[in-house]
């Protein structure tokens, strides 16, 4: 989110004056979360504002506020309860009948089995599940899936991209090494890196659940789990190149040719060689949506005024006059 210095001062004062629209308030939150510099800049401005105003925002802790809210809900429920005793008795009878039926059903429901097991080995693996959800496994990743009448469960080892079909009354849950992902009808990518595991959501929303924490991750957000701290953290910026192996969508923003080639090589499984050292630092901004590698190379060659040639297993990029 790009704001000039003047614009951000105006946005902050508007927010602190209580004049910001919901959209502006969200824009400011997003801007703050983009970097530590931004959040410090904001904190600094707020401190000054508080000095002038003579009062300061000091919210109670989130957990304390949550307990208070949960208490209010319980209180309201009790009030309704005393007012509707007769209805409640009737409901209890129905509940007992339903519980009996449910108990019967549970006793007669076969235990879940993971009926589908996928192993990507040394290649990317794309598969469509019986519910029409799509899974693309990264290299060296494994996936198990099973479903019954009420749920769909999966176990993921490694990283994968998912496009899950929402089905009423049949939630989709994925267990990974560090957390459980409860899917709320969505497209997302689970990635495993050296230091952490993350889920990047491009559409819809997922809940990340660990034994100690939970996090809602919505579209264009990324939730990360850091094993060292055991915390889930939300980021409001995503990198679509992370999941390019599944989507073949790339976004390069003033990116070095060397880095572009490395990304393309990993996704398309072709060796890429930059023959001339000077070309490696050339930069390019481009967006590719499901193009073939050949087409992408033509665009790169035209944009950066370079040549490329293909051999059996590699693509070689060189200066125009060196053939």
């Amino acid at each position: 989110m790009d704001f000039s210095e003047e614009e951000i001062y105006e946005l902050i004062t508007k927010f602190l004056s209580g004049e910001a629209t919901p959209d502006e308030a969200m824009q400011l939150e997003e801007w703050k979360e983009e970097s530590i510099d931004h959040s410090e800049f904001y904190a600094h401005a707020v401190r000054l504002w508080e000095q002038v105003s003579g009062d300061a925002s000091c919210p109670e802790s989130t957990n304390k506020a949550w307990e208070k809210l949960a208490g209010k809900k319980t209180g309201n429920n009790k009030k309704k309860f005393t007012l509707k005793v007769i209805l409640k008795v009737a409901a209890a009878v129905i509940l007992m009948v339903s519980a009996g039926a449910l108990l019967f059903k549970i006793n007669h429901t076969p235990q879940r089995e993971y009926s589908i097991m996928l192993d990507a080995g040394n290649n990317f693996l794309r598969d469509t599940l019986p519910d029409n959800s799509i899974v693309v496994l990264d290299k060296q990743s494994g996936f198990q899936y099973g479903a019954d009448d009420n749920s769909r469960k999966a176990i993921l080892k490694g990283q994968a991209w998912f496009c899950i079909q929402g089905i009423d009354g049949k939630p989709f849950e994925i267990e990974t090494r560090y957390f459980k992902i409860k899917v709320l009808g969505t497209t997302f990518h689970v990635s495993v890196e050296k230091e952490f595991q993350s889920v990047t959501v491009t559409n819809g929303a997922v809940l990340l659940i660990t034994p100690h924490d939970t996090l809602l991750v919505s579209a264009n957000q990324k939730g990360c789990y850091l094993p060292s701290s055991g915390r889930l953290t939300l980021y409001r910026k995503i990198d679509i190149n992370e999941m390019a192996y599944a989507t073949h969508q790339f976004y390069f923003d003033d990116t070095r040719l060397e880095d572009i080639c490395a990304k393309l090589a990993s996704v398309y499984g072709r060796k890429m060689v930059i023959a001339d050292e000077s070309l490696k630092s050339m930069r390019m901004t481009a967006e590719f949506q499901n193009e073939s590698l050949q087409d992408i190379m033509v665009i790169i060659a035209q944009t950066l005024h370079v040549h490329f040639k293909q051999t059996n297993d590699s693509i070689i990029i060189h200066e125009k006059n060196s053939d």
Partner: protein
Amino acid sequence: MLNDHNDDRLVEMCFKSYYQALHRYAYAMLKNNEEAGDAVQAVFLKIWEKRIHLIKDQGIRAYLYTAVHHHCLNIKRQQRTQEKRLADYREPGVININQLISKESYNRIMNCIDQLPEQCRLVFTKSRFEQKTYNQIAAELDISVKTVEVHMGKALRILRLKLSDILWITFLYNTFTCFSN
């Protein structure tokens, strides 16, 4: 469709993810920590009790900000009506004493505000000390709301540059106050 347990879980997740940010937003509008907390809680309580399905409209965050905004506007409307009634009985000239900083720092801030460019100072003082809205200021000074925004931003930028040295003192004070609550 999500079942009740999942709905409860989702409300909890949303509350825990957005409470602090929504409180900041509500506080900016209401200038009262307790009322801001109550406003956020009221919005969530309504969601919870009316079983508003947050997932379906795919815009949880936008929905929450809009709901808090409307709730705070309602509260402010009620407060204005009450204040009008009380105004007849209140003694004039009550000064809000700034309790966050020393008298010396306060005087320095006021001095810096006095040195702001004329129109900028006028806009800033009407907003900060007379609690006027951007619309009211624009109407009074016969300027556009955008011009009010520009003056407010400019005032904060100038003050921030001139007063950066005393900001840390307040920061430490506020941190201490928050943690001791």
